[in-house]
């Protein structure tokens, strides 16, 4: 009997030890940072940079799957800029579909509205990817292990810094003080440590720091890369610096930077206004400085999905927007053709093949030369350089009137005439406000313009909307406040 126990007990112990070891096996069927970090590939780093661009696309369902209520189906610029500013309405035939979008039109939203969650989520996902890329690229040991040379490293780092600045710029304009995350998190509990708002000034400082860093890292040339023309270029960095200066009313900086950009000679106004948007003219035009490059038929998808919404009757103009256009302005029909219910600027062609296309080739233009020239006009006007301001506005008007109409005709003589010389600041400002609205219509600049000019309340209440002072900042998405346990605070008035 005793002998049996002498066998059983050690056997049981051995079995136990063996089983215990199986509790600590390496995970299978999934990917952990340790696994990737122990065997890093060049593609891990370049992929991190490339993926940092993706949150600027209009590809459908990058976050979630048809998650309309949380505003995640696609980037919401058209809602929080164009619908909110009274240029756009949700649909050609108003209905109850996606009522949360209408709340931007009526200014009756609460912080629960999916639009805020969407914009916030797209930007912060972009930032998270940038931070990952930057953490790889600033890791000397990793760089030497992968033999990534300095030129390539700098170029990639420059792109990541630019994109991070771009996302933060969008956030700070929409929401004011926002959480500032500059490196990837290590685990979930860190998420709560970073869930606090950083002052607007500090966020702007970071944007400027990142752009200054990008300026020193991105190679010169109209395109920074002969094959990947879509990548951030020297011109994009300068233009973004000018935009940041503009939004902070540093008028002299705006003029200096744009003068520098003009001196490079990369850009000029396209002779045809529509070349900015035409798929056929992508990376062969003179004017587009920074756009997201949609490419159809990719896995994962990289096409433009906003055309699908247009196919469902979304993306329609308000009467007030259409009325803003002067007689015979060819830009109107290139922007919206109310009779045919088409938005060619978004389709990327003057046909309708892309209307309803979930995977279109049309790029999303973020910065183009006409926008930049009007910044300069504005800066001149604010610094009493009236003659220059009028000259720059007239450059835009000249191009508009010389653009062939959508049917291929010429604009009747006398239309969109040059603005006369003036030294009336308010008059020139009104011209500028008009010109930006018609030149850049549906390009998601308008609400930011109304805001920084301080005329959002007067203009929107004039249209019968219940815009209040608090609306100069959008509410922080309610879900973020809830999920952070209240460590993220709400903007005043919401």
């Amino acid at each position, binding site marked *: 009997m005793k002998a049996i126990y002498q066998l059983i007990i050690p056997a049981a112990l051995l079995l136990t030890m063996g089983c215990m070891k199986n509790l600590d096996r390496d995970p299978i069927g999934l990917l952990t940072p340790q696994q990737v970090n122990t065997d890093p590939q060049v593609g891990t780093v370049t992929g991190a940079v490339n993926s940092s661009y993706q949150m600027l696309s209009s590809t459908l369902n990058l976050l979630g799957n048809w998650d309309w209520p949380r505003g995640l189906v696609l980037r919401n610029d058209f809602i929080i800029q164009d619908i909110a500013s009274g240029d756009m309405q949700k649909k050609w035939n108003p209905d109850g579909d996606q009522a949360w979008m*209408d709340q931007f039109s009526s200014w009756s939203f609460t912080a629960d509205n999916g639009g805020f969650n969407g914009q916030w989520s797209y930007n912060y996902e972009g930032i998270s990817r940038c931070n990952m890329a930057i953490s790889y690229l600033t890791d000397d040991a990793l760089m030497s292990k992968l033999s990534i040379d300095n030129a390539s490293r700098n170029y990639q780092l420059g792109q990541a810094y630019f994109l991070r600045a771009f996302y933060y710029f969008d956030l700070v304009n929409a929401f004011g003080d926002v959480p500032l995350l500059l490196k990837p998190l290590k685990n979930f509990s860190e998420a709560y440590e970073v869930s606090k708002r950083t002052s607007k000034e500090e966020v702007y400082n970071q944007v400027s720091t990142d752009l200054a860093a990008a300026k020193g890292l991105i190679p010169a040339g109209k395109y920074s890369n002969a094959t990947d023309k879509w990548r951030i270029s020297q011109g994009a960095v300068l233009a973004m610096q000018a935009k940041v200066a503009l939004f902070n009313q540093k008028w002299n900086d705006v003029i200096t930077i744009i003068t520098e950009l003009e001196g490079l000679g990369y850009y000029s106004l396209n002779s045809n206004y529509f070349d900015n948007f035409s798929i056929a003219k992508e990376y062969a035009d003179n004017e587009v400085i920074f756009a997201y490059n949609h490419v159809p038929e990719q896995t994962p998808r990289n096409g433009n999905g906003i055309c699908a919404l247009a196919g469902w009757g979304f993306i329609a103009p308000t009467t007030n927007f259409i009325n803003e256009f002067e007689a015979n302005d060819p830009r109107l029909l290139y922007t919206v053709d109310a009779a045919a219910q088409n938005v060619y600027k978004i389709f990327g062609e003057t046909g309708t093949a892309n209307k309803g296309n979930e995977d279109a080739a049309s790029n999303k233009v973020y910065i183009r030369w006409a926008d930049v020239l009007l910044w300069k006009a504005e800066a001149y006007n604010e610094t009493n350089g009236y003659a220059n301001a009028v000259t720059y506005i007239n450059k835009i008007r000249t191009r508009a009137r010389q653009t062939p109409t959508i049917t291929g005709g010429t604009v009747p003589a006398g239309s969109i005439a040059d603005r006369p010389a003036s030294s009336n600041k308010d008059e020139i400002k009104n011209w500028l406000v008009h010109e930006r609205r018609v030149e850049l219509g549906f390009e998601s600049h308008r609400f930011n313009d109304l805001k920084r000019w301080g005329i959002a309340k007067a203009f929107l209440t004039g249209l019968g909307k219940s815009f209040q002072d608090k609306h100069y900042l959008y509410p922080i998405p309610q879900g973020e406040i809830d999920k952070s346990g209240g460590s993220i605070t709400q903007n005043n008035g919401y």
Partner: protein
Amino acid sequence: MGGTEYIQNRASSIGASRARFEYTQPTFQYLDFGGTAQDLWNSGTASEWALFSLFGSANYNFQNKYFVTASLRADASSRFSPDNQWGYFPSVSVGWRISQESFLKEANWLSDLKLRASTGTLGNQEIDNYAYLTLLRKSGEQYLISRYGNPDLKWESTRQDNIGLDIGFLKNKLNFTFDYFKKTTSDILLPISLPALVGNVSATVVNAGTVMNKGFEASVNYDNTANAFTYGISANIATLKNEVVKLHPNLPNLTGPVTKTEAGHPLNSYFGYVMEGIYQNTSEISSHLHGVSSPSQVPGDIRFKDLNGDGIINDDDRTHIGNPNPRLMYGANFRLGYKGLDLSFLFQGAEGVERYNDLKKIIDYDSRPFNHTVATLGAWNGEGSTNTMPRSTFQDNGSSYISSIFVEDASYLRLKNIELGYDLGKVVKSGNVFQNCRLYVSAQNLFTVTKYTGLDPESTALIDQGTYPQSRNLMLGINVRF
């Protein structure tokens, strides 16, 4: 008694599919035949987990009067990080059969009397494998963070304390059972969504808090089969109080689409605006919303209670508006028999439960252009017409807000089952042909008493978007046994 157990599970899968066959004939239906690469998909997964347990238990019974049972189990699960794999779960129960005591042994009317008490803890590791790890996913050439890990993750444990009494009278013809229980679940394993500012990641499993359930349960059973007329009744009633005791320090509350879970309130308590009527005219709107310069609301819209009185309806005016956990549940089964005739019926019900009737919103209140029910005829259509149902419109009439207008009392009493049977064997001589022949008519869910306007008050969905209701069945049958 002692034992050990070891479970190891390894699963892997491989899959492939394609769309758009070039030829539809079966002979050409091969995965790699024709078409572009876009039409091909393949997939694979793998995972494993292991659970190692040691357990022991001991029983003691003294003179069939005093009972003690104690047990202990120790479990180690691979689902937790190596530092937190072990969980220890003891339990002990005691019983005293008072009816066996000498002072009661002579009491014939009392057949059984037993006092019971127990306390014990159980563990739960039902989470995804590797839930403690940070994960990446690959999309094209890009590695993206798909989830942040929680290395501190540990076993969830539930401690249940129970005290109970079993009484049997008249040779156990009449039985009563009473129990009072308190169940405390600590370190509840819940997936928690992080703020979106950390990027697009899926929820991290967290030991999110402590929830307490306590309640009183009683049941009675009586059967009288001594005479030709037999009858019996079984009934039970249970109360339940559910309360979140505390939550993870980072998570003062957990919010769902229509719920908010926070300490001091039941789990998944409905949270939203309080509907207090319908705006009848513009002056009512401007006085109620005095904090808003030009309110977008119009007469016929839902009027929400301004809880903080600032003249603005915003997120601060939301509160707890309902509890989806029934506070009282009961059931009773009656059995009657006389000669060949038998009748039985079962009532079941719940009291003190609310449900979010999203179907009502979608069909009758929503601004989307869907077909409405006739309830729309009761919509507001002018000052004084109604104070309960908003105007019917394609604009937002307030129905897009999570509010008490959709939270309904889902208490109910339902006749779950009724059956009347007659044994033909009593009139037709059974003899050689058949042993038994019974004719019956029965009905399920014959009637329900409820104020709930959704399809079925028994729905357990937090957001009831029209749970497919239980049908009412009427059945006529004959049961023959040869």
